[in-house]
């Protein structure tokens, strides 16, 4: 016997007898003998629960928990204990996509609340129920722009995180769509270059704020220009920062998208996180993914349902605009609980505390004269410096002291040689920041 299989020998015998067969193997008689697998999987023998715990404890020792001064899309923000308490409830965690609204109001209601929160943060009219992550959400936003405009080219800002840009490129390439990059100037997207590249094939323009360098880009004049060209303006924004920064709607976006990891999710070695995607109601039928709507039941009770499903793959099949089937529902619950606890004041405070720490670190690092700021642009919690000391020296010294920071942007290509990234959240104490500075003082 095994703990996940309730079948006793007597059960099996009685079931087989009902079926008028003598062994389970007989049920597989349709399968050609040539493909029957008669040996063992190359998997170790089973483990008891305590053996498994020990095994994971050993594996865990091979990882090093670091004090994170790193960002680039994954941030070390505080996660209230309440989030785990709620998201681990089996009613939420083990249920399926809410196809039967009568017994799925829990999931449907928090999705509605999630959509409401994304709506207010982005300022857009409608959010879907979530996408896989920020990069795929942005790629889907590009598809959506192509579907809305019936055009085939995407302009991508050079200041986009290359991870996101790479995913967009893969998606576009295989769908036989094309792209071009808009140059950057002083660390921000160059409006003049955008002007020269906007042509009648351009379906959408993708920008990111805060951008790869952590810089808060301003988009004065962008939306008018893009609208005039009948293209869509796609803003990928770090959602947490929208507690203080201009919303995509205020920036003139047609589609807002990005990652929600910064809203209550652990770094988790990169996943699961959640991608958000929001737009205006005029485009809702070209939106990918699930959408939850408000309604009532036949007795007039408040109810929530998945709606506009006729856009989706299970009905539209090859005519659907997206193949997406799932959403990151449980991660949407992380977001909903996080934002419930933080409220608008907490979210502002998180941003202010992060801003304060980041700016303190920035000023102190510049004072060492070992770094310079190649851009001199406004930033929030993340910034990029040019280092005069070899990046290896910095990283090694940091790692020896249990710190991850000063990540070299050349992981994204040669052109970023010499640039290093720092990110500071509200979790970093003054002592931690001062320790980092002390290490830097000792370097040459």
């Amino acid at each position, binding site marked *: 016997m095994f703990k996940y299989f309730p*079948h006793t020998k007597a059960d099996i015998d009685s079931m087989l007898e009902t079926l008028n067969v003598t062994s389970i193997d007989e049920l597989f008689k349709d399968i050609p003998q040539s493909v029957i697998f008669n040996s063992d999987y190359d998997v170790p023998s089973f483990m008891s629960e305590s053996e498994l715990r020990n095994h994971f404890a050993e594996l865990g020792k091979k990882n090093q928990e670091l004090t994170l001064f790193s960002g680039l899309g994954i941030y070390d923000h505080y996660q209230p204990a309440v989030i785990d308490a709620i998201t681990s409830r089996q009613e939420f965690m083990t249920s399926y996509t809410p196809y039967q609204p009568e017994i799925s109001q829990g999931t449907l209601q928090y999705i509605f609340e999630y959509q409401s929160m994304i709506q207010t943060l982005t300022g857009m009219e409608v959010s879907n129920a979530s996408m896989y992550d920020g990069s795929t959400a942005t790629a889907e936003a590009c598809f959506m722009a192509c579907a809305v405009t019936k055009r085939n080219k995407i302009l991508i800002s050079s200041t986009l995180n290359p991870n996101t840009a790479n995913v967009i490129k893969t998606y576009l390439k295989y769908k036989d769509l094309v792209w071009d990059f808009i140059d950057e100037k002083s660390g921000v997207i160059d409006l003049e270059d955008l002007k020269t590249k906007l042509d009648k094939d351009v379906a959408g323009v993708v920008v990111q704020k805060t951008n790869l360098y952590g810089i808060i880009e301003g988009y004065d004049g962008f939306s008018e220009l893009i609208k005039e060209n009948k293209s869509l303006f796609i803003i990928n924004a770090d959602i947490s920062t929208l507690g203080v920064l201009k919303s995509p709607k205020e920036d003139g976006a047609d589609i807002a998208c990005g990652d929600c990891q910064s809203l209550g999710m652990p770094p988790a070695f990169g996943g699961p996180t959640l991608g958000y995607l929001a737009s205006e109601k005029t485009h809702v039928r070209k939106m990918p993914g699930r959408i939850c709507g408000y309604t009532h039941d036949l007795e007039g009770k408040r109810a929530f349902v998945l709606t506009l499903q006729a856009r989706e793959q299970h009905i539209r099949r090859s005519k659907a605009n997206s193949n997406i089937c799932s959403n990151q529902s449980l991660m949407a619950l992380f977001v909903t609980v996080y934002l419930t606890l933080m409220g608008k004041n907490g979210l502002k405070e998180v941003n202010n505390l992060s801003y304060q720490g980041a700016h303190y670190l920035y000023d102190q690092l510049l004072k060492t004269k070992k770094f310079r700021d190649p851009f001199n642009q406004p930033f929030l919690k993340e910034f990029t410096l040019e280092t005069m000391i070899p990046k290896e020296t910095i990283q090694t010294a940091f790692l020896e002291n249990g710190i991850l920071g000063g990540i070299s942007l050349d992981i994204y290509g040669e052109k970023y040689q010499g640039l290093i990234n720092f990110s500071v959240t509200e979790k970093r104490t003054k002592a931690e920041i001062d320790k980092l500075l002390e290490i830097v003082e000792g370097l040459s």
Partner: protein
Amino acid sequence: MINYNRMIFELSNPGRIGYSLPKQRFTDYNVEALDKKYLRNAELLLPEVSELDCLRHFTNISNKNFGVENGFYPLGSCTMKYNPKINEEMAANKAFRSLHPLQPASTVQGALEVYYQLQEYLSTISGLHEFSLNPYAGAHGELVGLMIIKAYHEERKDFKRKKIIIPDSAHGTNPASTVVCGMDVVEIKSNSLGRVDLESLKAVLNDEVSGMMLTNPNTLGIFENDICEITKLIHEAGGLMYYDGANLNALLGKVRPGDMGFDVMHINLHKTFSTPHGGGGPGSGPVGVTEELAKYLPNPRVKKIDDYYFIENSGEALGQISSYFGNYLVALRAYAYIRTLGKENLKLVGPYATLNANYISNALKTAYDLPIPGYCMHEVVFNGLTNKDTDVRTLDIAKRLLDFGMHAPTIYFPLLFPQSIMIEPTETESKETIDDFINVMHKIAIEAKEDPDKLKQAPTKTPIRRTDEVFAAKMMIFSYKDYLEYIQNRG
């Protein structure tokens, strides 16, 4: 508290807080110092509640949900098996949870070992050479698998191969993924036994065929016993075979997709390998390929030399399809599941799932219309009631089941029959649970004849009753802001 009916925004009281943040430590700085042109003016409609308010709200709405631990969940094609608690405990381990994906490989050897070993286990279980765990979900895996097929043909300069053959019984994601991958769908009809019709297949084979997507067992829960002939035909035509792993649970311990001649496949870790469905996600859709196709797997890759694990980005890869390593913590749960079962128990999964499904099929075939006779695999599809003389439809049967504290099966899929009811019991259900379900289904069949209105009215014991979907689609109330506007306009 199933009558609880507040939205979180309705609990809000200005000034209340549910967080505790550190004291300000660098008061020389303030975010308000940023140029106003960067700062938000728009109002934020977020709730302001205490911590206990928050917990009560979500606990109350959770009680209106139905999870695997609430009761039988025979949702066909979804493999709603038990999601083990120990996996959750392992995934909550800070030594994995707190890792940043840009940490140097030397500081994440444990995490990479889990990733690498899981790739290896999936390979031996599926009979394919190599896996990537980066795809985020089943449909994402399909897309990535199709990208690999396309990349393979394009590298051979065989640009005209754009057609993907898909049986009419396939999941909707198959055709949708094909189109998203810039290829064309060629649908072929199933034969009277619910299987791929070889003559129809032969008729569409030519030098434009890129590949074929197939689920085996198919969505009727039936094994495609001509599988060797099918893969041979596709390969002879120059195409590749894609295995949709949605129904892999049936095959554990019995058949490996690689041995049937498949070249590319995805696995739904949230089905076969017990990771929770999370109310719709996060899932995980690892993609596996033959040795010849391994170079196309997406970046980043996790590799091993001697006992050291490292991360590689290859120029030959099809590109990047995720920011980092996919839904890593989902993969970690699947790893824990595989290690818990071990080779001894993994091979019992398919047989027990199949035994349970056939037991149901046999017990219900008098009252429910079984369109394809014979043994099924891990799931069985009926076409409504045997008695066609009532107004009772599959929808009514599904809704009535909810009143008995059971989740409904998948309904109206596959599209081959007008009244499809697709039942998948999984191996984690006991004979007693299944007997209860069978009894209830028979009771419903009798009610359909004697008291059909009861079924039409069902469910009546659930937190809400049937919903007005037309209202939802027409009114398009997608947020609390929309809701407030609706209330205001209604007066």
